[in-house]
């Protein structure tokens, strides 16, 4: 790939997208999300509105019916969604999971699936990597896809924390096609499949929802002799891990942008409340013990934002950006958690009341220090691969 120069445009960070996105989000206010949260229900109306307005197809090339924008534009969209108090977690994967099909799929796969994903006729927003027994140690995963004489594959195994599987038509699945013992490197022998869920469920695939502390539609998947056609293999057999890694930088950057949006929401709420709430005859925000943590959270968010912008600029210039994408996710998730905690503390007892939305956003923001990659694993990556220290993973 030729070295393109990477730029951050501080004056125009996709300004034209921000007002329209927040105008759409304004129709899904706190009470909408509170009710979904209470019922653990999928925010279908919100997801459909974003789909109809084409925002989830931002990154799909125009040739396949999307808008062909870069990751920086996707980041601006998701940031605004979160800054508006909404939750992109319900559908962010519809924006980027298709990247694996786009980069590594056959022409036929691209022509079949991408236009459907772009229009929203089909959703590809389930991504099956994590397993109960191997967790962060992805290359050790145990789900197998065995090639049969007729060219189809038989899938067996189990996945956990697979979000939105019940609200997706397609699942991008990582499974082992060559036993680890028969490969030279542990990253080899894994393959990626695009599984049509409407055909799989009830025919060897069972999806079981997991109740969690947030409304995230996450599930467990059980594969029991599920047969999938040979044509569902993406790219070459055995090279799946590499394909997945390619998509992860995009995921890291976009989720980091959501964390920036969350930080903005928390900081705005906190500073407004600190200015308005009177105790001891003056606004609580007049006390430095209340004001400074909010200012600190703001500074932390702005610093994290720069890393998100740097990672996005490198990504959009087609340059390597693994360290930056991971640092963006790390710093932004820490910043939003700091902002969340500060916002809750600023609200005192009222922070615990559902109607303020702070406790819900607080729970939701906490996720990003664990998923899609935990803070420690980002640090381990930086320690090992950027700084050359001894292996821990």
């Amino acid at each position: 790939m030729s070295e393109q120069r990477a730029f951050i445009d501080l004056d125009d960070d996709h300004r034209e997208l921000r007002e329209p996105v927040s105008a759409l989000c304004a129709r899904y206010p706190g009470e909408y999300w509170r009710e979904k949260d209470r019922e653990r229900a999928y925010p279908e109306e919100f997801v459909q509105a974003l789909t109809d307005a084409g925002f989830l197809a931002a990154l799909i090339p125009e040739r396949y019916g999307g808008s062909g924008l870069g990751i920086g534009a996707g980041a601006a969209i998701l940031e605004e969604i979160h800054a508006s108090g909404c939750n992109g977690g319900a559908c962010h994967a519809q924006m980027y999971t298709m990247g694996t099909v786009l980069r590594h799929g056959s022409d036929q796969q691209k022509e079949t699936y991408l236009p459907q994903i772009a229009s929203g006729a089909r959703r590809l927003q389930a991504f099956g990597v994590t397993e109960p027994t191997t967790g962060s140690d992805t290359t050790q995963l145990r789900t197998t896809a065995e090639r049969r004489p007729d060219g189809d594959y038989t899938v067996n195994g189990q996945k956990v924390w697979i979000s939105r599987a019940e609200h997706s038509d397609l699942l991008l699945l990582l499974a082992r096609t060559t036993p680890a013992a028969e490969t030279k490197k542990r990253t080899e022998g894994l393959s990626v499949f695009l599984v049509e869920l409407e055909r799989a469920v009830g025919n060897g695939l069972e999806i079981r929802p997991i109740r969690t502390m947030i409304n995230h539609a996450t599930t467990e998947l059980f594969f029991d002799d599920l047969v999938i056609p040979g044509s569902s293999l993406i790219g070459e057999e055995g090279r799946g891990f590499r394909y997945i890694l390619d998509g992860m930088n995009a995921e890291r950057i976009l989720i980091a942008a959501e964390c920036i949006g969350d930080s903005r929401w928390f900081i705005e709420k906190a500073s407004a409340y600190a200015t308005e709430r009177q105790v001891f005859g003056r606004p609580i925000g007049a006390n430095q013990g209340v004001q400074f943590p909010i200012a600190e959270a703001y500074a932390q968010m702005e610093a994290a934002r720069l890393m998100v912008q740097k990672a996005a600029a490198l990504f959009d210039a087609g340059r390597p950006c693994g360290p930056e994408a991971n640092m963006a996710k790390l710093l932004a998730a820490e910043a939003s958690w700091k902002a969340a905690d500060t916002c809750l503390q600023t609200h005192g007892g009222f922070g615990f009341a559902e109607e303020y939305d702070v406790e819900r956003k607080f729970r939701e923001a906490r996720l990003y220090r664990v998923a899609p990659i935990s803070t420690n694993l980002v640090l381990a990556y930086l320690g090992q691969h950027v700084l050359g220290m001894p292996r821990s993973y």
Partner: protein
Amino acid sequence: MKVLVAVKRTIDPNVKVRVKSDQTGVETANVKMAMNPFCEIAVEEAVRMKEAGSANEVVAVSAGADKAQETLRTALAMGADRAVHIVTEAELQPLAVARLLKVIADEEQPGLVIMGKQAIDDDSNQTGQMLAALLGWPQATFASEIEFKDGTADVTREIDGGLETLNVNLPAVVTTDLRLNEPRYASLPNIMKAKKKPIDRREADALGVDISPRLAIHKVEEPPKREAGIKVADVAELVAKLRDDAKVIG
């Protein structure tokens, strides 16, 4: 028919406004801005007229600082064909805006000017009426339905007693009420198309009208906090309280 639609950039209606500490106005620094909701309804109606074939061109116009351009981009993304930005950093009061809009209306010669009945920031509800007077055109305010026939428009208005329908000759000025329509979202493909649509920048100073403020604002205050109410035992106590404490009855 060409439709001219005027739009204003205001504080986002979902933002809780705060009075500036020096009481000269409300805080707008670092506050989220958006298109005035009544203007959104006006843009939507204009775009629907074009879609229905009663209009063939929709021109959006806004007067204000540089940022007003973003609001015009939203109008373009909703379906306006082109935009005129009257650039000024000056404080604009309704008469000034009406005068500026008149210049543009004289140039553009639209068959209809449509705009919000008021802006949610200062709630003046004057600009449309003043513009109609300056142009010498009929006006129909608070529209909840607009229908065209034979070079005229039937405009239904929500009034205290119910609905009233006016028949106005065109060209006319119409201002929109809340129930006229539900504005669409600007979709991503249309936002991208809007980036290529032209915005004509016009310096307000060069339009030859006096836009200096006519009214001075002395002080802006938060509305008083609502005090907790009291419960009365019976009608007699209520009447006594109204007479002796509140002094609203004799």
